[in-house]
């Protein structure tokens, strides 16, 4: 009698589609996956230990390196955490500039995430090339404002490093003209594409009932049908002044997450338009003059969280009154969104594993810290 036994294959850590050094040990019966076990730690550099040796301000450039795809969102979360701990106010114009940068990062991240996921499905980089082209335009804006394209280090406690130059807003307006055309074209290329439907419908399902208990947040949670967006659930900064919708999936499979990300790009564009209308003049200043940068917060702890494009990004800081944080913990969305990966991939084919991982959209800098 022919007996077949399972084959153990390592996908990663050095593999074309694991978004960085991430390894999945899968046991396969023929093509279907019986068990999947994620292995982390290849990019672990003990970011939190490093943060305890630096002063609060010196940690700011290191937060760029967490989720290096959207450094502005990391800066924002860390700045909010320290401002909550030390009780620093932020002037109006700085708040608007901050939200503008974070929403631009969201567009940039989703354009890339969708591109990478379709790339894992096998389309030879064309959707990714379109995404990267839009990303380049946004990175030029970041470079004009903060001085660097990816490692922006643009936020300070109480505001931002420098005010936006005059030619920033006209260029942003031009970009927003191109944005809907790009998203519509991406939909025309992919939305009803039978092959994409075949590869993503009903794959990697995370049902609504179980999604919350896994602690996933961001597009993964919204893809499963739960309209939980921190910008709406617990509005921080000035998000309560903008009208925008929260896209939500119905089944909770790869296709829903793909659609949610595309819809979120449109919503971010809506927010950006409202920001351009409501942007206060420069009289309020781009930084709170009294906010001393070598901050010495009182004893105590604080947790601030932000809706980063990947999910809930939170910083938990404990201060002992000194210039350096006593304890600095990062709640990384990519790391926690990987919790259901093992259960989501059981029963699917090897080809689907890669697509499911792509739909969760992880960045190893944030997972391994």
């Amino acid at each position, binding site marked *: 009698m022919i007996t077949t036994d399972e084959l153990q294959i390592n996908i990663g850590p050095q593999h074309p589609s694991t978004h960085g050094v991430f390894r999945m040990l899968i046991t396969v019966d023929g093509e279907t996956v019986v068990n999947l076990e994620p292995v982390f730690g290849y990019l672990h550099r003990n970011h939190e*230990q490093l943060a305890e040796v630096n002063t609060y301000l010196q940690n700011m450039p290191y937060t760029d390196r967490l989720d290096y795809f959207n450094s502005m969102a990391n800066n924002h979360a860390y700045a909010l955490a320290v401002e909550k701990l030390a009780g620093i106010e932020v002037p109006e114009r700085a708040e608007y500039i901050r939200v503008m940068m974070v929403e631009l990062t969201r567009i940039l991240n989703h354009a890339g995430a969708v591109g990478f996921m379709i790339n894992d499905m096998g389309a030879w980089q064309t959707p990714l090339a379109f995404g990267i082209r839009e990303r380049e335009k946004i990175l030029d804006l970041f470079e004009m404002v903060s001085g660097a394209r990816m490692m922006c280090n643009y936020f300070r406690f109480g505001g931002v490093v420098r005010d936006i130059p005059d030619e920033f807003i006209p260029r942003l307006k031009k970009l927003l003209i191109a944005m809907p055309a790009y998203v519509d074209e991406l939909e025309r290329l992919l939305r009803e594409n039978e092959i994409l439907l075949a590869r993503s419908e009903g794959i990697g399902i995370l049902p609504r009932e*179980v999604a919350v*208990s896994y602690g996933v*947040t961001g597009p993964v949670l919204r893809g499963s049908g739960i309209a939980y967006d921190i910008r709406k659930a617990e509005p921080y900064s000035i998000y309560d002044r903008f009208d925008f919708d929260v896209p939500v999936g119905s089944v909770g499979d790869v296709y829903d997450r793909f659609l949610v990300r595309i819809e979120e790009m449109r919503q971010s564009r809506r927010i950006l338009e409202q920001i351009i209308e409501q942007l206060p003049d420069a009289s309020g200043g781009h930084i709170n003059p009294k906010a001393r940068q070598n901050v010495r917060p009182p004893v105590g702890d604080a947790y601030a969280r932000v809706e980063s494009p990947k999910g809930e990004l*939170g910083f938990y800081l404990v201060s002992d009154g000194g210039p350096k944080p*006593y304890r600095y913990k990062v709640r990384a969305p990519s*790391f926690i969104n990987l*919790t259901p990966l093992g259960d989501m991939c059981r029963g699917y084919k090897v080809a689907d594993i890669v697509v499911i991982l792509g739909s969760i959209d992880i960045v190893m800098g944030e997972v391994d*810290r």
Partner: protein
Amino acid sequence: MSTTPDTSPSPRDLLREQLATVLPHTLVTLPDDLPELIRTADVIVHADALPEVVPFVIDQLGYGLLSDIAAVDYVEHGLFELVYRFYSIGGGGDLVIKVRVPREQPDVPSLLPILPGARLHEREAYDLFGIRFIGHPDLRRIYMWDEFEGFPMRKDFPKQGDNYIGEGA
């Protein structure tokens, strides 16, 4: 002390009052002459009472999203503090439950049977701080390689510092 903006009873007082009525034995009352670093107004719960408190928080109070388990090492006071942070899908602020365990034998019951979301949090706390979660099916190191001894994020973990670099010269 995280300040909550809205004036309605903050989730913390709500939790304290609900716990006092339903599960009084779980609450820990702190002596008021604690050193400033570990003085806190948040709700502190006995370690072994967790498996009762958490389902209560999730089902009765509606705080279903376990957002974060943060381990803090107060080495001068000889204790680890685990900060469990819950959010409700309905929105609003966080609900914090703190658990304090002595540094010598840091054993905490695992939440995995109740909440699959706690899997990676607990493995990270074990790997970096050495807090053992009883009942966790595969409590292995998550970042460091398995043969690594010691727990890197503890305050008393030897930081080589400069002489490590200088050995060669």
